[in-house]
C-alpha cells in the first residue's frame, strides 16, 4: 500500500493564513516568492519527520495537521507537536531505515546533491547512510578507541593491547589488588592481643627483674654487713700484732738459744778453770824442784852416739874400715858417758818422785803429759785467759736472761691482747699458728665477701636493709633478662610489622594517621575510590566492546548491503529510467561509478545534467530500497529551477514516470516555464489524478 499525503490543513503558516487542500497522485503547487511555498515544505518536514532540526527550519506559530494514509488502516495525522512521526510507523516494518529518510523524500531548493561540497554530490558515506545506515556506525565507532575496537572478551577476561583504557584498567586493578593485599596483610598481621600479651609478659618479667634488683640490693646490704663483722673480727687479731708476736717469739727463741749456748760454754770453761789453783801450786813445786838441781837427762849424748853409729855404717858400706872403727869407738865412748850421767841423776831420787807425781797428776787433769815447766806455765796462762772468758759469759748470760724476761713479758702481753687470756709457754706456737690461721681465714673471707659485693655492682647508697621475698640469683636475673630480651624482640618485631604496615597504608592513601581505625578508614576510602574507578573503567570498556561487537555485526553487513543495494533492480531501475543511458552502479575505492552498455564513468566526471539525473535516480532508488519497494511521496521544492529547458523536460518526464510507478509527487514551483511544462505533461498523463494549486496569500 502506498504511503500518501491525503490532506494538509494549516493556519498562520508564514504568509499563508490558511491552507486546506486534498492531494492527488501528482501535485503541482505554484506560488511566486513570499507566497509560502518553502513554509509549506518546512511544515511538512516538521510535522511528518523526526530530526527536523537537521533542516535548520524556521519557527512558525502555526497550527495544522497533515493527514497521511497507508501507514495504518486509518489515516494518521501529523503535526509539528506529534510524538510519533513517519519513521515511527515505518520502522515497525523497516528496522534499518536511516534516521534522515526525510533527506531522500524532500528535495529542498535546486540542490539534488545528497552531500554538499562533494564531487558528484554523493560518496560512500551517503551510500552507507541510505543503503546500510553506516555513518551512524562510524559516529558511534568514533567514540570507541582503536584499542577497545581490537579488544574482545573471552571467558570473562578482557583481552587486548596493554594501552589506553585497557592499560588504565589493568593499572587500576593492580592498585585495587595492592590495597586488597594491604587489607589481607592487616587481617594476617593486626592482632593487638598478641602485642598486649607480649607487653604484659614484658612487664611481668621487668617486675621480676626489679624484685631481683631489690633482692640484689638487699644481698649487697647483707654482704656489706658480713664484711663489717669480718673486719671487726679481724681488727681483734690484727696482723701487725701477730707479726709483733711472731717477732717477739723469734726473739725469745733466739735469746733462749743464746743462753743455752752460753751456759754450755760457761760450764765447759768452769770445768777447765777448776785446775787453776792446782796449776799455780804445781808451778811453785816444779820451780822448787828445779832450783834444787837440774834433773835434766843428757839426751844429746844419746843423739851423738846415734850419729856416730850411722857414720860407722856408712864407712862400712864404703869399705872404709878405719873410719868405721873410729866411729864405732867414739859412739861407744859417748854412750858410756850418757850412762854415767844418768846414773848420777838416779842418785837424787826424792825430787824425782815429787816431780813424777806432779807430772802424773797433770796428765790426769789435762790428759796430756807434762813436758816441763814451760808447758805448765803455758797451761796456767791459758786457763787464766779462759777465766776471763768465763766472766764475760757470765755477764752475757745475765744480760740475755734479762732480755728474755722482757720478751716473755711482751709475748704474754700480746697473747692476752689477742686471746684475752694467758698462754702457757709450750702452747705459744700452736696458739700463734691458730691465730695466724684464723687471721688468714678472716682475711680470705673478707676478700671473698668483698669480691661478691663488688660483683653485685651495687652502689652503697642503693643498699636495702629491708628483706625481700625473693632471693637474689644471678642466674635467675640472667634468665629473666634473656627472657625479657626475647619478649622485647618479639614486641619490637610486632611493632616493626605494625609500623611497616602503617607506613605502607599511609603511603597508599597519602594520609598519615596514627590510629589503626583512622588508617584503615583511610584505606577503605581509598579502596572505595579505586573500586569506583575500576568499576567505571570496566563498565565503559565492556560497554564499548559490546557496542563495537554489535557495530561490527552491522558493519559486516554494510559492504554487502551497499553492493546489494547498488546492484538491486529497485535502485538501478530509476537510473535507467531517468538517464536513458546508464543501467547500473558500481562502487570502486569509495567512488561511485555509473555503467552503460559501452562506457563506465565516475559520477563526478559526468555532465551536470547526468549527475542530477543520477542523483535523483539514487534518491528514488534508495527510498524504494529502504521501503522495500513501497512507494511514498516525493517532495520537490523548485528542484529543477536551475536546469536548462531540455533537462527540465527530461526531469519532469522522469518524475511523472515515477508517479506512474506509484509515487506521489509534490512539486513546488515559482517558475512559469516549469509550471507550464509540468502542468501540460501531468495533465496529459494523469488527468484527474493531477492537482494544481496556486498559492496566493
Amino acid at each position, binding site marked *: 500500500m502506498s504511503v500518501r499525503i491525503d490532506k494538509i490543513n494549516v493556519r498562520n503558516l508564514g504568509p499563508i493564513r490558511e491552507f486546506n487542500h486534498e492531494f492527488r497522485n501528482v501535485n503541482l503547487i505554484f506560488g511566486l516568492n513570499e507566497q509560502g511555498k518553502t513554509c509549506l515544505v518546512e511544515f511538512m518536514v516538521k510535522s511528518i519527520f523526526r530530526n527536523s532540526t537537521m533542516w535548520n527550519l524556521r519557527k512558525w506559530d502555526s497550527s495544522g495537521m497533515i493527514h497521511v494514509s497507508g501507514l495504518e488502516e486509518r489515516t494518521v495525522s501529523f503535526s509539528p507537536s506529534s510524538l510519533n512521526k513517519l519513521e515511527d510507523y515505518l520502522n515497525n516494518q523497516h528496522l534499518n531505515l536511516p534516521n534522515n529518510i526525510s533527506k531522500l523524500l524532500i528535495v529542498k531548493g535546486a540542490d539534488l546533491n545528497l552531500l554538499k561540497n562533494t564531487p558528484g554530490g554523493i560518496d560512500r558515506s551517503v551510500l552507507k547512510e541510505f543503503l546500510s545506515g553506516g555513518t551512524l556506525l562510524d559516529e558511534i565507532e568514533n567514540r570507541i578507541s582503536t584499542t577497545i575496537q581490537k579488544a574482545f572478551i573471552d571467558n570473562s577476561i578482557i583481552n587486548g593491547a596493554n594501552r589506553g583504557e585497557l592499560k588504565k584498567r589493568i593499572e587500576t586493578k593492580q592498585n585495587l589488588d595492592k590495597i586488597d593485599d594491604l587489607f589481607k596483610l592487616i587481617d594476617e598481621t593486626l592482632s593487638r*592481643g598478641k602485642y598486649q600479651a607480649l607487653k604484659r609478659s614484658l612487664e611481668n618479667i621487668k617486675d621480676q627483674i626489679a624484685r631481683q634488683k631489690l633482692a640484689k640490693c638487699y644481698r649487697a646490704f647483707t654482704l656489706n654487713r658480713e664484711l663489717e663483722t669480718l673486719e671487726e673480727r679481724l681488727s681483734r687479731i690484727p696482723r701487725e700484732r701477730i707479726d709483733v708476736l711472731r717477732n717477739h717469739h723469734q726473739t725469745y727463741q733466739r735469746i733462749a738459744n743464746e743462753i743455752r749456748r752460753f751456759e754450755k760454754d760457761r760450764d765447759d770453761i768452769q770445768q777447765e778453770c777448776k785446775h787453776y789453783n792446782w796449776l799455780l801450786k804445781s808451778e811453785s813445786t816444779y820451780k822448787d824442784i828445779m832450783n834444787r838441781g837440774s834433773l835434766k837427762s843428757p839426751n844429746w849424748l844419746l843423739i851423738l852416739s846415734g850419729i856416730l853409729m850411722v857414720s860407722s855404717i856408712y864407712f862400712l858400706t864404703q869399705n872404709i874400715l878405719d873410719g868405721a872403727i873410729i866411729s864405732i869407738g867414739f859412739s861407744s865412748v859417748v854412750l858410756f858417758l850418757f850412762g854415767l850421767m844418768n846414773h848420777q841423776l838416779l842418785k837424787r831420787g826424792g825430787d824425782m818422785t815429787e816431780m813424777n807425781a806432779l807430772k802424773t797428776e797433770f796428765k790426769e787433769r789435762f790428759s796430756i803429759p807434762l813436758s816441763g815447766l814451760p808447758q805448765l806455765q803455758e797451761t796456767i796462762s791459758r786457763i787464766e785467759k779462759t777465766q776471763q772468758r768465763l766472766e764475760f759469759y757470765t755477764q752475757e748470760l745475765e744480760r740475755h736472761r734479762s732480755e728474755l724476761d722482757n720478751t716473755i713479758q711482751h709475748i704474754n702481753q700480746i697473747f692476752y691482747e689477742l686471746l684475752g687470756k694467758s698462754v702457757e709457754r709450750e702452747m705459744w706456737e700452736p696458739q700463734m699458728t691458730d691465730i695466724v690461721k684464723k687471721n688468714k681465714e678472716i682475711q680470705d673471707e673478707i676478700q671473698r665477701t668483698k669480691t661478691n659485693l663488688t660483683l653485685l655492682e651495687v652502689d652503697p647508697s642503693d643498699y636495702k636493709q629491708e628483706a625481700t621475698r625473693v632471693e637474689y640469683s644471678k642466674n635467675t636475673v640472667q634468665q629473666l633478662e634473656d627472657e625479657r630480651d626475647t619478649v622485647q624482640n618479639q614486641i619490637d618485631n610486632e611493632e616493626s610489622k605494625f609500623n611497616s604496615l602503617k607506613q605502607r597504608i599511609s603511603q597508599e592513601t597519602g594520609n598519615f594517621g596514627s590510629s589503626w*581505625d583512622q588508617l584503615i578508614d583511610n584505606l577503605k576510602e581509598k579502596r572505595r575510590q579505586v573500586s569506583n574507578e575500576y568499576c567505571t573503567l570496566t563498565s565503559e570498556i565492556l560497554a564499548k566492546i559490546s557496542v563495537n561487537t554489535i557495530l561490527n555485526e552491522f558493519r559486516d553487513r554494510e559492504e554487502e548491503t551497499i553492493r546489494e543495494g547498488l546492484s538491486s533492480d529497485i535502485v538501478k531501475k530509476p537510473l535507467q529510467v531517468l538517464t536513458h543511458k546508464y543501467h547500473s552502479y558500481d562502487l570502486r575505492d569509495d567512488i561511485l561509478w555509473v555503467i552503460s552498455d559501452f562506457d563506465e564513468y565516475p559520477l563526478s566526471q559526468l555532465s551536470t545534467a547526468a549527475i542530477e539525473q543520477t542523483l535523483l535516480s539514487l534518491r528514488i532508488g534508495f527510498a524504494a530500497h529502504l521501503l522495500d519497494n513501497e512507494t511514498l511521496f516525493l517532495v520537490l521544492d523548485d528542484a529543477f529551477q536551475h536546469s536548462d529547458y531540455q533537462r527540465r523536460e527530461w526531469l519532469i518526464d522522469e518524475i511523472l514516470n515515477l508517479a506512474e510507478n506509484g509515487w506521489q509527487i509534490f512539486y513546488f514551483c515559482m517558475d512559469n516555464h516549469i509550471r507550464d511544462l509540468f502542468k501540460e505533461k501531468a495533465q496529459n498523463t494523469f488527468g484527474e489524478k493531477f492537482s494544481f494549486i496556486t498559492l496566493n496569500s
Partner: protein
Amino acid sequence: MKVAITADIHLTTRQQHPERFNALQTISSILHDQNITSLIIAGDLFDRDQDHVSDFDRMCSESPLHDLSIYIIPGNHDPGIKQSHFASSNIQIIDTPKIVSLFSDDYPFLFVPYQLGFTMGEVIDPYVEALRDKSWTLIGHGDFAPTFSKYNPYEPGVYMPLTNRDIDMYKPAKVFLGHIHISGDIGRVNYPGSPVGMDINETGHRYFLLYDPISGSIDKQIINTDVLYFNESLLLLPSEVESNYIFEQANRIMESWKIKNNERNKVRLRVIAKGYSTNRERLTGLIKEAFGDIRFYKDEPPDISDVKVSDDLERENIAKQVIQQIQDMNWPCSEDEPTKSDIEHAALTVIYGG
C-alpha cells in the same frame, strides 16, 4: 539449647521508629513459639547512649519479652549504657568483658562490649587462658577485617577490628559481631545484621540468628518487618515503546524482591533512572505507574536527574542489540565489577553520546 542473636536495632522512641520496636517484638514472639529463652543483642541496641531506654525497658517488662533473658553489650552507638539504666530484671547489660556460661561451662560465651580505640584481639587476650580447650563463642561489636573493603554508608569508619589472626590465635568456635547491618557470615564470623532496615540503603528482608553452641548450628530466621526498603535503578532507552521497556524492567525488579503480595504495602522504594528518554516530562509518572501500588520512600519521586533526552530512534536497534548482548554476557559478579545495569548505562552513553 539455642540462643537468639541480633544486633544493631538502633532504637530511638516508639514514636520515631515503631518498626524497630516491632521487629524486636516479632523476634520475641518467634522465640516464645520455639521455647527459646535467651536473646543476645550484640551492640547498638540504641541509636544513642541511654536516650529513650524507657520504651525498651517497659517493653522488656511485658510479655513476650519478659520471658526472655536478654544479654546486651554496648556498641559504638550506645557505649555508655549501664545496668542501672534499666528496671526490668531480665535485662543484663554486660559493659565489661565477661565470660558467661549460658548453658554449660564447656560452652562459654565471651561478651566483649565495644571499647573505643581498642582492637578486639587486645580485649580478648586476657580472657583466653580461662577459655582454653573449651568450645567458646565470642559476642562482640565491631568490624571483621575481611569486611574492611566493604563500604557501609550507615557505619563509616572502623570499629574495634577483629582479624583472622585473632581468630587463628584464640580459636573461638563461633564469633557473632554486631555493627554490620547486613546479615552474613565469613568463616566462623557471623553478622546477624539489623532486624529491620535502618534506611533506604538497607534493603530487602531482614533476619536474626538462632545459635546452638553445642552443635554449632546457626539458623537464619526471617523477620516479618513493618517496612521493606528497596533501592533500585532503571535504565531508559529512547524508544517508541519506552513505556513498555520501563514496565518490563519494573516487573523484573519487583519479581527479584521475592516478596509476597501481602508484603507489597511494606515496601518503601527508591528508584534512580539512568539512560536516555524521548520525553523526560512523562517519565516520572510512567515509572510510578510501572511500579503500581508500591509506595515510594518518603514519597519522593523517582530520581530522573541522570536521564538525558534523546529522540534519536535510529540508534534504538543498535542499543537494543547491545543491551541484549550485555544481558547474555557472562561477566563475574563482585563488588568491584560493574553490574549489567552499569555496563548497559555505559553502552547507552557510547551509543547516544553525551
